[in-house]
């Protein structure tokens, strides 16, 4: 049992390859919105949505390639806590923005 756990442990932290892939993806996902905003390729709503999607994608890149969220011991309480946090954050941010649209 102990042996098996140790084995799982050593697989837990990714490899140099996964860090490099994560780093390159993060750079690409930073440069794309930057170019879009600086060159006025799009404007208004579509641009906001596109750069937010890039930010969320980069969040997932960091979670998977840097924070190794897939590789923890089961059950993954950290993932469950994170999902709860995401629900709370979404409720607070979207709820605040929505309700303040009535403040005219």
């Amino acid at each position: 049992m102990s042996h098996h756990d140790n084995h799982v442990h050593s697989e837990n932290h990714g490899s140099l390859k996964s860090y490099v892939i994560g780093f390159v993806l993060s750079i690409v996902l930073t440069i794309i919105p930057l170019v879009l905003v600086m060159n006025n390729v799009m404007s208004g709503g579509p641009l906001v949505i596109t750069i937010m999607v890039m930010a969320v994608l980069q969040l997932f890149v960091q979670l998977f390639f840097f924070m190794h969220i897939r590789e923890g011991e089961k059950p993954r309480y950290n993932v469950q806590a994170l999902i709860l946090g995401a629900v709370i954050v979404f409720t607070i941010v979207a709820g605040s923005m929505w309700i303040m649209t009535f403040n005219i």
Partner: protein
Amino acid sequence: MAQAMTHHEHGHAHDHDHGHEHHEQLKVLGFWIFVVTDCVLFGTLFATYAVLMHNYAGGPTAKELFELPGIIASTFILLTSSFTSGLAVLAMHKRNVKQMIGWLIVTALLGLAFVVLEVNEFAHLVGEGATISTSAFLSAFYVLVGTHGLHVTLGLFWMVALMIQLKRRGITPVTKRKVTNLSLYWHFLDVVWIFLFTVVYLMGVM
């Protein structure tokens, strides 16, 4: 209290080796939960900013104030430091203390550069008359970005303390867990910055 716990566990080191490992694992989970609560803290500050971002009160607007070149530099500095803190963790699992402390030093220097750039930016803004009391937009801006900067600064002190501990004790289950938590914290701060960069700066200059 924590000190007493460690002593106690050392006393039973032989028969409780696995229990000790497990205990450290539990502390990493505890740290994850802290990170989630910190996400909620930033979530409320983001919500405040999103609501107040156009309330300039006759003061300067985001478009007039923000200068992207410095922000782009900060972004890549923090992104690189997130990567190098990961390399420190890799070196830790290879049990290479020297390499590990080396990458932590690189990470800390990049973090310091980030904080210096941010302090300069704030000083520049205040010099232009855009203070925290100028408008609701600027109040929300300084609180949101400042809270992130404070987190990075705190992380720097933590990192230095941990490097001293690593030098003295080497790689033990306890220092291993501490470095794991620190790198989690550091990646998390980078994630928060991505959203700051997108929502505050990119949307600000649009």
